[in-house]
């Protein structure tokens, strides 16, 4: 087997993965929604009709918690159009929701990046070095896993103080064990393989062995875990903000938007419904994509491939 055929095979593996992913309609739906959300997040300042922090009292003839007004659906044209209504502080709900996309995706990606970075290093060191290092790291991870993740995040935010950055940090910290365990398991499964032993015999250093030989083979479960982790992170951040521990007013964050209007579920349902729907759709999209990736990257399904 020459170098060219190896390269061809490697390319075709990814191609097979993509083909498997796109064969699942649910994965495509998830991916499309995520792409739309990314587009919204990147272009929020151009597509949002209002500044999300702008209080419209005195600027427009609108009332607090006014129902959606869509000209197309019969709302009088002399009234300003607010397609998702007005919130409890007389701001445009639609604009706030669009800007909230930016924040939610930022939360999801940044916390997962943080957790993967830390979790990967810890898991890799733990799996490769073994012994007391493995024991120490994994027992700490076990302790973290022993707490319900949201409760632990609440405890961390309580200590650090409420705020978006602290909430991100808290969610990131509670997510580390999941990635550390995945990476450790992968490292354990490949560290005694011949190509690793060969690198070791050739005098490869720890960094080279771990990150050039072992880690590429541990990437698959990490991608799946990471995609599903984004959904969990968004949900946790929304929960923390709902409880007043995450994003602080007037930041447009879906969880805090939902929390601040929770009492208006009967009187102004649009203020609770739309942020809730946004959270649900985003989490669903990442879950669909994560499930699809898991199936596509699962070698046991290769034959079906």
């Amino acid at each position: 087997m020459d170098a060219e055929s190896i390269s061809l095979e490697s390319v075709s593996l990814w191609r097979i993965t993509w083909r498997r992913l796109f064969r699942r309609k649910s994965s495509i739906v998830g991916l499309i929604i995520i792409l739309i959300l990314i587009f919204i997040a990147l272009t929020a300042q151009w597509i949002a009709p209002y500044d999300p922090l702008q209080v419209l009292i005195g600027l427009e003839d609108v009332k607090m918690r006014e129902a959606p007004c869509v000209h197309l659906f019969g709302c009088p044209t002399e009234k300003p159009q607010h397609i998702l209504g007005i919130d409890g502080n007389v701001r445009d709900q639609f604009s706030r929701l669009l800007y909230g996309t930016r924040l939610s995706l930022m939360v999801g990606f940044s916390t997962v990046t943080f957790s993967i970075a830390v979790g990967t290093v810890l898991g890799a060191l733990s799996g490769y070095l073994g012994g007391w290092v493995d024991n120490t790291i994994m027992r700490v991870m076990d302790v973290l896993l022993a707490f319900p993740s949201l409760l632990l995040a609440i405890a961390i935010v309580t200590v650090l103080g409420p705020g978006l950055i602290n909430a991100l940090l808290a969610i990131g910290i509670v997510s580390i064990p999941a990635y550390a365990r995945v990476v450790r398991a992968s490292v354990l499964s490949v560290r005694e393989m011949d190509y690793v032993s060969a690198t070791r015999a050739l005098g490869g250093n720890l960094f080279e062995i771990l990150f050039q030989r072992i880690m590429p083979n541990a990437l698959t479960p990490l991608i799946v875990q990471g995609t599903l982790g984004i959904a969990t992170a968004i949900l946790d951040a929304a929960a923390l903000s709902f409880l007043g521990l995450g994003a602080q007013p007037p930041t447009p964050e879906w969880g805090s938007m939902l929390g601040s209007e929770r009492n208006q579920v009967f009187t102004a349902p649009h203020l609770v419904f739309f942020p809730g729907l946004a959270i649900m759709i985003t989490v669903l999209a990442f879950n669909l994509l994560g499930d699809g990736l898991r199936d596509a990257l699962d070698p046991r399904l290769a034959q079906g491939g």
Partner: protein
Amino acid sequence: MRGNTLFKLLSLLVLAGLVLAACGGTSPTADNPYAEIPFEEGISVSADSCDYGGKISSIEATDRLTVVFNLCKPDPAFLAKVAFTPFGIQPREYLDYAGPSKLILEAPVGTGPYRVAEWVRGDHVTFTAFENYWGTPAVAATAVLRWATEGSARLVELQAGTADMVTNISPADIATVQADPNLNLIFNVNPNVFYLAFTNTFAPWDNVDVRRAVSLGLDRSRIVENYYPAGSEVASHFTPCAIPNGCVGDAWYDFDPEAARALLAEAGFPDGFATKIYYRDVVRGYLPQVPNVAQDVQAQLLENLNIEAEIVVMESGAFIEESSAGRLDGLYFLGWGADYPHVTNFLDFHFGEANGQFGTPHPEIFENLVSGSQIADPAESEPYYVAANNAIRELVPMVAVAHGGSGTAYRADVTNAQASPLTNEQFAVSDPGGRDVFVFMQNAEPISLFCADETDGESLRACDQVIEALYGYEVNGTAVVPMLAEVCEPNDDLSVWTCTLRQGVTFHDGSTFDANDVVATFTMGLDASSPLHQGNTGIFEYYDYLWGLMNKPAE
């Protein structure tokens, strides 16, 4: 054989106990493990001198039905104060028995139309009608006090018929209640004030121009129009106009963002500054939508003064402790609802010499308050309150924002529904449509039922059903009416008040009400050296603020 002997010995001991109990001079009843102390000689409590700073020199039971209050200085508001719930009378014997063990915190014994049957923590308090009540008996045989912090939860209970009456309807729910034929709504006219406070010991609030700039740069009418229910008004003075001498003197500043920015620049902050807005997320009649108002103030400060304010939500108890001690370095939201309808209740508490919540108190304000508080005739004391209100306006220790209205909703078949201006609704006079049980829902659970040492309205409302003071407030009103006293009469300079007590009043434990019960109750509250002066927190805030504590340990 040995067991038989032991049984006989035990039986003898029980019998001997029963005989001893039966032969006692005054026998405790089956319910009362303490004996009633019959009135033989009047007791008294007195301060060594009036140098202790309080208002009471001595209280004496001169005979079985007469109590004399000797004051250190004239007090025209004596009746309004003595009618306040924390000064409700409990039996002398019960204070001795239940005070030290703190049983009194959960099981108060009073003379009211209801007695406490049970308090299921976290759920409800049940009251049953007191069969030997001296006044008009309670209409409903049972009253239940429940609570829910969320306005929507209270409304749902009312709509479901599981509550007869609920307080503090959220402004957003008012239209729902008005549209429901099965429900009625009363707008409450509780004299209250919501204010935005600063502590002048922290920069930049030590600069009066900065405080004045915030006052000018805040559109208070925008807040009231958008976040308060109908019946609320923008505060022209700290004290509502419903209180005599409340709104004398110059009205508060008009909204003028230009002038505010100029003043802030003059004070050395042309580009604004960063600060914090502290509040507790607790609904009150004076502030029905706290988070929304906080965000609006935040937006206004940024827009009009370029002040960037971070919102900090605090736990209620910690917030009160920190703000009262003057330890909050930013702006904070607080308010006040009338305890008794007198201007001293608003101004003296907040701007008195002893209150450090706004930082260093201003003599320009408190000296006028001291003078005004000693004059009975409102017309005569008016110049002092004009001067005090003008000084408040000039020195801006806080920004008075609104006098809030709130709605109380009830089932349409309830008669004699109330929305008391002093938030002390009397369950006994309401008829829940002929049903046996009257269910009332409020914002929160009482902290304890020992109101001598509580300040929150939720506890006081519960105590109001059970405990009575020498005077009380008329139902749905603010006028004082005699309760356990038939009359309290002052001497010429209002420094001695002689109270003639009502005859034939019995407490819930069956003991007879007399003058010593009054003196014992006030001793427990006033004398910090008394072994009974324990309470829930031991602070006895209302005793301290309205009368002054005797023998207070040095701080």
